């Protein structure tokens, strides 16, 4: 407490609205080490792999000599993008499993009775648990990616210096900052797009008594199946698939000015389309759904007891 509390119990010490929120986020990190351990471990493994590839370069890749100069950038960016994608996928998986357990584990271990004995509202609790996969994890993944890519760059420079290659070529041709900007953009875009998925998982975790994964996955699949059997259509199924990767056509311009397709290993900044993404109805429908799922989870937590 910033000020010493007054001896009189009549005086109501004020606590700023953000403090319970801040401590609730810390609490989540105490409980769920995987939020930072998993991306760190994957980054470490990625770096190990990169070191191995520097020491024993694959036979068909003996430098940039044999490659069309037009693809130099892509070839140089490739290991960096691979590592970044690996980290983003890790973040996604951690986020999914975190959300499935977030409002379930406190009921399983009865600690919900302890949390509810403190002046923290259900709103603060649920929003905190939504902020972890939707903000904390993406930011963490971004920071770890940046650090990892810088270490990769240093390792490459060291290898080039030892092997007598041209450091200048690497530095001029590798668009590292552009890569990192695209990683940040992709993290933001995909997280916004996946918001209803996280919302749904949190809702299931506050509702289901057990088998949260099954409750999260089976109902949507069942709806698709019933639709197919009843009407021989698959609108719901394609909606679900669209929710998985549908942000790409809106968020990126997939054809390059020369008519070729964008190489996913290196997406130039010029191919990003934030305006079009923000204007896409899919994004806003998803956000409204996410808000509805979270509102339901907040309401539900009021009734929740240990299981």
């Amino acid at each position, binding site marked *: 407490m910033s000020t010493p*509390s007054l001896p009189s119990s009549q005086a109501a010490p004020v606590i700023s609205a953000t403090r319970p929120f801040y*401590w*609730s986020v810390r609490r989540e990190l105490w*409980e769920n080490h995987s939020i930072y351990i998993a991306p760190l471990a994957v980054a470490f493994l990625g770096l190990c792999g990169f070191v191995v590839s520097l020491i024993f370069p694959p036979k068909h890749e003996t430098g940039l000599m044999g490659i069309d100069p037009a693809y130099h950038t892509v070839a140089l960016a490739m290991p960096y993008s691979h590592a970044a994608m690996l980290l983003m996928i890790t973040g996604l998986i951690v986020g999914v499993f975190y959300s499935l357990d977030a409002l379930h584990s406190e009921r399983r271990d009865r600690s919900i*009775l*302890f949390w509810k*004995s403190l002046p*923290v*509202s259900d709103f603060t609790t649920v929003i905190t648990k939504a902020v972890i996969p939707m903000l904390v994890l993406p930011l963490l993944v971004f920071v770890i990616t940046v650090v990892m890519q810088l270490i990769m760059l240093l390792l490459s420079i060291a290898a080039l210096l030892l092997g007598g290659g041209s450091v200048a070529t690497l530095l001029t041709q590798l668009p590292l900052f552009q890569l990192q900007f695209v990683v940040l953009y992709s993290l933001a875009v995909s997280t916004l797009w996946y918001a209803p998925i996280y919302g749904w998982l949190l809702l299931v975790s506050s509702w289901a008594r057990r088998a949260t994964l099954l409750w999260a996955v089976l109902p949507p699949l069942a709806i698709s199946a019933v639709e197919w059997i009843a009407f021989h259509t698959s609108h719901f199924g394609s909606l679900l698939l669209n929710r998985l990767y549908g942000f790409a056509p809106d968020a990126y311009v997939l054809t390059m000015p020369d008519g070729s397709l964008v190489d996913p290993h290196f997406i130039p900044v010029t191919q990003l389309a934030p305006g079009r993404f923000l204007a896409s109805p899919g994004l806003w429908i998803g956000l409204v759904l996410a808000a509805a799922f979270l509102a339901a989870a907040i309401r539900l937590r009021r009734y929740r007891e240990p299981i």
Partner: protein
Amino acid sequence: MNVIEARSLRKVFGKTVALDSVELHIGEGRILGLIGPNGAGKSTALNAILGLTSYEGELKVLGRDPWSERDQLMRDVCFIADVAVLPRWLRVSQALDYVAGVHPRFDRAKAEGLLAKTSIKRASKVRELSKGMVTQLHLALVMAIDAKLLVLDEPTLGLDLLYRKQFYDSLLNEYFDRGRTIVVTTHQVEEVQHVLTDVMFINHGRIALDCSMDQFETRYQEVMVHPEHIAAARSLKPIHERQLFGRSILIFDRVDRQQLTALGEVRTPSIADLFVAVMGQASEAPAGGAGQKGAAQ
């Protein structure tokens, strides 16, 4: 203003009536023992007071509606639920940090002082502590909160005798004062008898007895009756009779003490014995009241 005010409080689970027209008027500075068999509605009543369950009827705790204002209410109310509910992954230091972070009335120095008297280490996780130590930790956290109402639901369940004794001693000596109110449920009735200011029996969701300990002591007498006076004693309509070592022990409600002294040794019954008497009376009420359940022990 009473700390807890309930009027026709009712809670139904499916076809089971857990609470039925319960009236509570609990003033400041009281220590109320809520006594009842399993499934009597004790926990439901506490959960309603704590905003953990919805209810019908009217309920105000410190002037607030617990169901809709739980988070504000918890600034002034603390509770320890039936078994250790501290999460097993939590470190002692994290528990202190967290409660200090979210609770405006938490006095960290006081909690540290209370913990210093135990063998609990700051770096330990809850899962590494014994059951008694977890309760000590929880009690240290709660006692460092300057709350107006403390609710304890079977706080000493599963603890050994030493910890149980310590629990109530520290609660009385270091925590309780006239400005606070404590509501406690327990099966270890003998341990709280000397602690309580008020006692309430609850059975089948209804309040079977509600009186202060002062009233309790003037109202109820337990007499170990001399065999030759047994007929005379029975004519005074005892509410309960039991046999102990061949002697009859009768409990009377509102009978003149002088009259009883002539029949045998008079003393105040234990809450446990009165509980058996009142519950027996309640279940045999249609048969004429004065329950003559023999071997109730």
